């Protein structure tokens, strides 16, 4: 017997304010009553509470998301569907989206990360695309803390466990460490897919009388209230909410990918959507609302893994690896046969109805009936914002510049900071080659995937320097997009568009909300300049532990198009004797730099400023030089400045460098001034290169040696590649084998 008789009555829900424990505020509850014209019952209250959570409704961030440019000549699908789609020519398109799984990963890191990957893959293949790559953007606390090491180890295993098994290469991402993430790691996963235009699918329930089918894994009590849970701050209490843990089954999802991609070719398919956060409620109500229709669903027919599940539990369950599809009436058997071949069940559970309601039937009774669009129209919240005192102080702070006596020692120390160290300990655990399309593996600026059957490639990257954003969210927001675009350009790609994952603290805090506002403004402005629309994204708020918010971390995921893989570039030097150029001049900009954080233990002052017009102009010039074949290698200067970039360019090679500067050594080596590149150019093409890239200054040449020699007016620095590289490579594995 279901336990529905134990549920409180509509009156009790109102009088005892039970809706509050479910996550609805007073005024939201009143709005529900108004929309329904009556008091909601327990199931209905549950539907609203989960759909009106921040995670599902974006009620707080909506006003900010409006600032993003979402249109462009390549945009086939902007925000609002499972994932965004951009045209890449030849009737092909690229599909991508990023999503956070921060809170689940803080509780159960392996499964939290694994199901995060599973969820974002479903978003992509539900559009009709074959997933071709995964990227992961990760933030953890201090590696000296054993809990942090546990989280790091398990999150990476979880991503590897899911991505490797399902056979989608994990080709790139980010990994940074900072104390602000000690209790609240960030686990953002991005998936990229490729499709033909004609295969485009949307999550809509069109056609009155059409059949609603449930496919994939059966429903258990997993993650009930998971979506509302993700919208709350983590506290000690979270430990009790153990039902929120969902277990991923990548094998099931692999079958689901193949079956759904077969389904995509079938003319009977009308709409398809994955059951992500808030499972059945969100998929059913969104599909109905988008098409301006209703859905009648019989819950007795839902495949169930556990006994005695109530309508509330079934609708809110977050069991993984499930999809909801709408098909033309009469084609049920054909559709079942497609899934049966892959050992999966497809079950007809409802139909599309004219009346615009989501109507749920259970054991012969209607247990819930709510207007389809009501669930998707949470009242928007306009939060107050306030300039943080710290920001004002940082803006007024004098320019920070350290006195450094041991330049070589400082470079060594910098490169062995976990954030700058080699990420090989992580990337070796990921199958980054499966599907045999990975042209540039993790380790360069952007990863590159070939589009099979063409000479085209897709470059992809995730970027966000949260320290800059913490100091100045407007400037930092611009830089996040600019750095992503620069990474794409370094590989020979033309930036096409972005997806974003907005990770912040509690928006009720006006200072946090101000940071959100400013950083989104900055990102939006940069997107306009680079003509890279925002085509999808995700918001993760309440990233706090014990009222300590994370640094604002709006991660940018960008994809670019390489029109000819024959003109691909990477960061590594290629030939002895090539000329080395530094593009762009360094100014003493150290606020939020890796050097400042290493020496001071914290960021302060102003971050580097960025001139977006100059940035764009340089990107165009560098890209043009790459496309004309004038360069051997290109690397952008980012965290750690020229020192880190030069090291990157010789690591893994048999080369060194001989460089001469007339500038100040500390500024030249460690400043994080924007819009700069390190480029190597064949001697014979120097003229052509110089004519193409303004602001390129000849600095020296690639040598066949174990040293990077840097000569300044006042002194010389000699860096030994073998020793530096060995230590740089060993940082993470060394930290992870630490005792206890």
């Amino acid at each position, binding site marked *: 017997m279901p336990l529905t008789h134990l549920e409180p009555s509509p009156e009790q829900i109102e009088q005892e304010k039970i809706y509050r424990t479910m996550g609805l505020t007073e005024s939201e509850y009143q709005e529900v009553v108004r929309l329904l014209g009556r008091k909601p019952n327990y199931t209905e209250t549950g539907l609203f509470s989960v759909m009106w959570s921040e995670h599902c409704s974006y009620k707080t961030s909506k006003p900010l998301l409006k600032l993003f440019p979402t249109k462009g000549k390549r945009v086939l699908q902007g925000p609002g569907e499972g994932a965004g789609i951009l045209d890449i020519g030849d009737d092909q398109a690229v599909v991508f989206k990023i999503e956070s799984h921060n809170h689940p990963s803080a509780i159960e890191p392996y499964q939290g990360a694994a199901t995060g990957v599973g969820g974002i893959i479903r978003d992509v293949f539900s559009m009709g695309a074959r997933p071709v790559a995964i990227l992961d953007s990760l933030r953890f606390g201090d590696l000296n803390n054993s809990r942090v090491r546990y989280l790091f180890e398990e999150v990476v295993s979880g991503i590897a466990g899911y991505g490797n*098994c399902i056979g989608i290469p994990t080709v790139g991402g980010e990994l940074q460490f900072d104390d602000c993430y000690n209790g609240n790691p960030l686990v953002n996963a991005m998936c990229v897919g490729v499709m033909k235009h004609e295969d485009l699918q949307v999550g809509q329930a069109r056609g009155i009388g059409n059949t609603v089918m449930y496919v994939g894994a059966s429903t258990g009590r997993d993650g009930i209230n998971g979506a509302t849970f993700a919208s709350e701050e983590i506290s000690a209490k979270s430990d009790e909410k153990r039902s929120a843990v969902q277990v991923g089954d990548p094998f099931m999802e*692999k079958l689901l990918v193949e079956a759904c991609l077969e389904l995509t070719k079938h003319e009977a398919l009308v709409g398809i959507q994955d059951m992500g956060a808030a499972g059945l409620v969100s998929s059913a109500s969104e599909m109905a609302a988008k098409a301006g229709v209703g859905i009648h669903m019989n819950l007795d027919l839902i495949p169930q893994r556990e006994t005695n599940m109530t309508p509330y539990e079934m609708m809110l369950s977050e069991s993984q690896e499930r999809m909801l599809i709408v098909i033309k009436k009469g084609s049920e058997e054909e559709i079942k046969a497609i899934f049966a071949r892959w050992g999966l069940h497809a079950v007809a559970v409802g139909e599309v109805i004219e009346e615009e309601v989501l109507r749920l039937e259970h054991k012969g009774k209607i247990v819930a009936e709510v207007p389809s669009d009501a669930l998707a129209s949470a009242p928007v919240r306009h939060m107050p914002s306030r300039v943080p005192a710290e920001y004002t102080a940082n803006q007024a702070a004098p320019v920070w510049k350290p006195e450094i006596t041991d330049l070589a020692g400082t470079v060594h120390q910098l490169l062995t900071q976990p954030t700058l160290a080699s990420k090989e300990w992580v990337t070796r655990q990921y199958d980054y080659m499966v599907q*045999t399309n990975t*042209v540039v593996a993790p380790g360069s600026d952007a990863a590159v995937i070939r589009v099979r059957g063409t000479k085209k490639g897709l470059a992809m990257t995730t970027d966000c320097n949260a320290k800059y954003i913490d100091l100045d969210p407007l400037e930092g927001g611009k830089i996040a997009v600019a750095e992503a675009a620069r990474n794409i350009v370094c590989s020979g790609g033309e930036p096409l568009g972005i997806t974003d994952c907005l990770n912040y603290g509690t928006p009720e805090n006006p200072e946090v909300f101000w940071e959100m506002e400013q950083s989104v403004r900055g990102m939006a402005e940069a997107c306009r300049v680079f003509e890279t629309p925002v085509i999808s994204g995700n918001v993760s708020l309440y990233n706090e532990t014990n009222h300590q918010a994370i640094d604002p971390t709006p991660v940018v995921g960008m994809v670019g198009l390489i029109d000819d893989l024959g003109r691909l570039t990477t960061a590594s030097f290629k030939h002895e004797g090539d000329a080395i150029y530094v593009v762009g001049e360094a100014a003493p900009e150290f606020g939020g730099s890796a050097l400042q954080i290493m020496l001071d233990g914290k960021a302060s002052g102003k971050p580097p400023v960025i001139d977006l017009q100059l940035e764009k102009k340089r990107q165009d010039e560098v890209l043009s030089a790459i496309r004309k074949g004038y360069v051997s290698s290109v690397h952008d200067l980012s965290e750690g400045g020229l020192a880190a970039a030069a090291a990157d360019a010789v690591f893994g090679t048999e080369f060194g460098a001989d460089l001469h500067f007339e500038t100040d050594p500390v500024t030249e080596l460690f400043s994080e001034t924007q819009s700069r590149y390190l480029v190597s150019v064949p001697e014979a093409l120097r003229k052509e290169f110089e004519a193409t890239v303004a602001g390129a200054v000849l600095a020296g040449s690639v040598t066949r040696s174990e040293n990077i020699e840097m000569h300044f007016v006042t002194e010389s620095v000699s860096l030994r590649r073998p020793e530096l590289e060995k230590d740089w490579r060993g940082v993470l594995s060394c930290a992870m084998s630490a005792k206890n």
Partner: protein
Amino acid sequence: MKTAVIVFPGANCDQDMYYAIKDGLGEDVEYVWHAETSLDGFDAVMIPGGFSYGDYLRSGAIARFAGIMPAVIKAAQEGKPVLGVCNGFQILLEAGLLPGAMLKNSHLKFICETVRLKVENNETLFTSLYKKDEIIRIPIAHGEGNYYCDDATLKTLKDNHRIVFTYHGENPNGSREAIAGIMNRAGNVLGMMPHPERAADALLGSDDGLRLFQSILNHWRESAHAAYTS
């Protein structure tokens, strides 16, 4: 030469193998669904890598009971080349077509990288285009590639030159004697953890794996291939 690439649920290198043969080698190739029961008409059989049945329980354990497996065993008995790569190797071990078993990597983590292999035996139908002791670069990607067999088995493998590839340099997974690939007594069934199909296109970093497929093709051309294709 017509090659079969077996498709198990959860296999994920089936397409990679398919393209290595179709585009890299330029030969005829077809997918064969795990529930099929015959491999008649095929000249060679490829069991690709991946996570058949999610690698649940033990890698390869469930796949060996698939409907196609009796046909794979028959093909092996008939002397057709049978190549199992990564998960395919694990399936061949579970099915008893090759001796030994796989343990978790000694460092317990999945490992993906391009490694150097030493061609221990180039007098096989799979390796005739390599030089003896040649060092080649081929990617690996596995969590359970730590090959184990008992001393007696190891001795037979050695005595009969059935160790085809070993890891050169660091042993990436702790396998016995750094074994990366072994063959059966008759020499027509090869199991290897490294992925030659991932090294069949220079654009992706190495094409050292292509010669393995070309060796199979040469063998087929040289032998009385009419016997296979009856």
